[in-house]
């Protein structure tokens, strides 16, 4: 009698498991095929898988100890770009993949710049090899008054950075986009409390004073280790992003309000749960048929989470004394006049503030606009893409029509074209406010967040890498 056979459908869980013991090239191919087969879909799993994979890619990259750090960095960038291109090509509509790739590229560039910075301070000779990369982020082209060393976006800053006084102004300036009433304070407060971040995030961030003490060590600074630390920080960010967004819940949800939401987003649920601890309000929940209604029902009845690898379980809102009303999608417009606020968690926020969100969101947003109900978008920074939508049709994924009409309906299959768009394109005009893990942000200021997190030269991943890294627009 043979042992029972395992037949596990590949998923994010199996991917992360196999990542530990399979060769890097196999893992890349595996992720590509998983993305193609849509076995890893939605922003968060895609982002997690990509970040974990890139961590392995960087760790597996062999850099000769004698190699000059700039050359090493260029090779790393080249490698990451190459992997990134393949991942993005596998499923171009999962933009979170591209976002994470760009963020990791940003980490590498930043490490190099930090080092170049340090090199200038310590020895004149050290700065020479850095010069090819230095113009990559020329100060005059950067709109913010920073030294190149401060290119670190706020969320990359370790607690040690906050301790460095000289960086204060830069930080303040980089968070200025969030400066609207209570948001700005909330953002600053979370930055000042290292508790808000992952407790293990004590990175050996470049620029720590200890480094300056020994020049030799700093010369051969291990770029790889720095980058790996950077990616780990990114992973930590992905892990706490929903909690961070939920921290501003109380500023948006007030007692007695009626909130409309849609689908089974973990972000929205955490947000509402956090608010429910202090406030009493009513939630109207549109079910999101046909792609999401089962998950929505389960979320309302049982709470959710516990399925993914790092998802926490949470209790259903009803158990916290919140009235939840489940409505079909068709009733949205009729009920909109009673709604005080709409909460949406999109798949992707594009650079101009328009959204790609689960099908049905566009209806909600337009109905809200017609009734002048504010639409609040909850999105982690990792969902923010530097891509501008030119052809909106191309961005929309069409799913399995059998969710709309069963495949067994032979006459339907034969005679009717059934389309099942998974995503909706939501125009930016309908969105009132974005709440990210860095705090709230108005539509018009979104470009600042984009500029803080992505390098101009990384926006177009498919473009061939410029020689010597001299790609400055």
């Amino acid at each position, binding site marked *: *009698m*043979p*042992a*029972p*056979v*395992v*037949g*596990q*459908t*590949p998923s994010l*869980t*199996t991917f*992360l*498991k196999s990542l*530990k*013991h399979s*060769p890097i*090239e*196999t893992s*890349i*191919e*595996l992720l590509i*095929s998983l993305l*193609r*087969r*849509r*076995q890893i879909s939605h922003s968060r799993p895609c982002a997690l898988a990509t970040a974990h994979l890139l961590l392995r890619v960087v760790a597996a990259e062999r850099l000769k100890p004698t190699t000059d750090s700039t050359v090493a960095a260029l090779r790393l960038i080249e490698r990451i770009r190459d992997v990134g291109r393949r991942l993005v090509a*596998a499923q171009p509509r999962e933009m979170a993949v591209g976002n994470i790739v760009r963020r990791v590229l940003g980490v590498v560039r930043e490490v190099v710049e930090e080092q170049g910075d340090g090199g200038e301070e310590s020895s004149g000779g050290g700065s020479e090899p850095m010069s090819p990369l230095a113009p990559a982020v020329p100060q005059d082209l950067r709109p913010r008054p920073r030294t190149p060393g401060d290119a670190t976006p706020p969320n990359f800053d370790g607690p040690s950075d906050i301790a460095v006084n000289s960086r204060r102004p830069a930080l303040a300036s980089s968070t200025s986009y969030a400066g609207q009433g209570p948001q700005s304070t909330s953002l600053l407060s979370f930055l000042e409390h290292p508790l808000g971040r*992952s*407790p*293990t995030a004590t990175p050996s961030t470049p620029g720590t004073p200890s480094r300056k003490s020994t020049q030799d060590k700093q010369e051969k600074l291990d770029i790889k280790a720095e980058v790996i630390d950077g990616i*780990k920080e990114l*992973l*930590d960010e992905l*892990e706490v992003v929903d909690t961070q967004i939920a921290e501003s819940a109380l500023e948006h949800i007030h007692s007695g309000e009626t909130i409309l939401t849609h689908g089974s987003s973990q972000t929205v649920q955490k947000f509402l749960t956090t608010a429910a601890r202090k406030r009493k309000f009513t939630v109207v929940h549109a079910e999101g048929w046909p792609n999401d209604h089962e998950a929505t029902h389960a979320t309302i009845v049982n709470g959710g989470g516990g399925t993914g*690898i*790092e998802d926490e379980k949470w209790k259903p809102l009803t158990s916290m004394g919140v009235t939840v009303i489940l409505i079909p999608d068709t009733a949205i417009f009729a009920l909109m006049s009673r709604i005080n606020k709409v909460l949406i968690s999109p798949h992707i926020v594009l650079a101009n503030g328009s959204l790609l969100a689960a099908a049905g969101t566009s209806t909600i947003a337009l109905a809200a606009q017609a009734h002048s109900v504010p639409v609040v978008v909850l999105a982690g920074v990792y969902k923010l893409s530097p891509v501008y939508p030119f052809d909106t*049709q*191309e961005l929309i994924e*069409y*799913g*399995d*029509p*059998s969710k709309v009409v*069963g*495949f*067994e*309906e*032979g*006459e339907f*299959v*034969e005679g009717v*074209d*059934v*389309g*099942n768009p998974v995503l909706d394109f939501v125009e930016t005009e309908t969105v009132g406010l974005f709440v990210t893990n860095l705090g709230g942000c108005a539509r018009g200021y979104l470009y600042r967040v984009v500029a803080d997190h992505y390098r101009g030269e990384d926006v177009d991943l498919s473009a061939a890498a410029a020689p010597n890294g001299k790609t400055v627009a």
Partner: protein
Amino acid sequence: MAPKAKKGANAQKSKGAEEEREEPLQAVVFADSFETRFAPFTLERPRCLLPLANTPLVEYTLEFLANAGVEEVILYCGNHTDQVEEYLKHSKWTRDTAPFSLEIIRSDARSVGDAMRDLDQKQLITGDFICVYGDVVANIQMEAALAAHRTRREKNKKAIMTMVLREAGDFHRTKSQNIRPVFVVDPATERCVHYEQMRPRETPRLDIAEEVLKEHVEVEVREDLIDCGIDICTPEVLAQYTDNFDWQVPRRGFLYGVLKDYETNQLTVHTHITSEGYAARVKNLLSYDAISKDVVSRWTYPLCPDVNMLSDQLYQLQKGNVYQEDGIVLARSSVINRKSVLGKATSVGSESVISNSIIGRRCVIGKRVKIDGAYIWDDARIGDDANIKKAIIANEASVGKKCHIQAGALISYGVSIAEGTTVTGSSRITRAKRQRRQSKDQTAEGPTNPKIVGEGGAGYEMEVDEDEDDLVETLLSGDIYNMRKLSLSADSISTLDSEDEDEDLEDSSKRRSSRSESFASIGSDESGDTRRKATDFHHEAAASIVDALQKNDDVNNIQLELQALKLASNAEDKQVRRAVAVALMKRIAGLVESGMAPKDAVAKTVPPNQLLITRCVTTDKEEYSEQVEFLLYMQTDLLHRQQGDKILLFACNTLAHKDLVEAEGFEQWWEDPRSSATDELQAVRKDTKQLVDVLVGDDDDDEDEDDDSE
């Protein structure tokens, strides 16, 4: 890393270690379906490499298996093994990064049953495995089916197989149209208790055993299922195939047999009927058409063109299920309507209209062309003003200007249709000609028939083989007349065969009606049935004898098996004779092909096994009709075999020598009109004339002398 994540990682690790101890999930893929339903295209390429929506079929199958988490795949090739190997060698499935290990097995198996027996011998299977054909297109989640199979196995070790079936309602384009499988299922245990195949134009009537109805409180008769050929098997299945050497196909052979032997073996077969997901087999041209449509309309999501299964594909979905790759040149006034696929570097001339069609890469389509519902593979050329309906135009074929290709036409590789020709719907035009019996894979250029392809064209109408008795398939649905016509013409090629079968048919219906008057009313149904049984018997018997001969089995055993089979299927002596004659000739021809001289081959095959002949051909009576029949069967079988004339000569010589056939027998055979009905028949027996003359002469001369003629 956060402690929480670490904990998660630890948990995964321990779980991973646990799973490593378990058996890997295996799958067996039959890249060859051992049928000829895709002729003429399969003359030159294996079926699993035919493009479905511009992606080879086998990609869909392997993608499905990767999807199901399979770790080891064993791929059985039949025809065109080299091409399959060559293709897979360059595909992503054999790279280090492939999700499973792929083993390609070259085999000369003639049926799924043979392959299964081979598999059992090779001992490659360690645990439960998924068994699929190389033409499955499916996106169903196998987890549930596997789990159900496993729990059943734990409870009852006799549950040896689970068939995955997809619900498809009353009418469905993707459902099999010619042969409709009927499953009788006990809903409580999901056990399949009875299986039958219905043919169209037949009174639907099931022959359910009494015990079945007694034992099961509730049974469901399901005719609404798509049988996609996905089976979850235990190693016991292989053992069963080995025990029952005559099982050839998984359904009509294996399933039928297991159900019949339930009383003795207690083995059960279960079903997993799913109402979610997509699963179908590209069994014939009809389902090729239906599944292509399903793929384009995204019912197979995510296995749609824009998934880009091949690494060099770059399809993008556009409005109205139009998929386009890069580098397509469309004239400004051309129109691409809904549900079309256009491959890389294809160009479409001005004012051309393309709708519901799949067009491969690098095709050149002229001006004012109308294409509706056609399948045009890579590198085809379509001239100006051509009008193409639902037809298949294969790679590198060219259609001239102002041609009309009517619905249902099949135009194979490299065929060229001259300007202004009309190709009718029943045409199957090819340039390849099968080299009989030499090697299945080799083809040669056939003669061009200007009547079909016009002056200056290249290609000819494909011949339909007499031993390919599967229904010849067409692309058009509901076109039963068309199909009937074709199958009739298939019969008419070999007069002897068809006559015989008609006789069988008449005989049996006569017999039945005389036995019981009440049968007369449904005589027509019955006769169809017996006729089917007769062909079944013939195939089984012939195949098993050839098998046994190859293995050099003891002749007594062969005779015993044959006898058992005869009794089991209630076959007549005549059929046994035919089977023996065909099997012996097949064996001899096989030896000749492998390089043996015809004389040696005959000497090696006939004398040791003469018992078989004596048992079915009587010589002691003054009645020679059996001998004549035997010779006729031999002659017909040798028609298309390599060196058939030589074999016939030596075989006759041996038969005469061993007194298996008497001189009178030869004489009557020679004079029998059936033996000289066609030119081919005459050509085959030409060499034997001398021998017959000598034999007959001898006989006339002297009766008491021992004939010492050669």
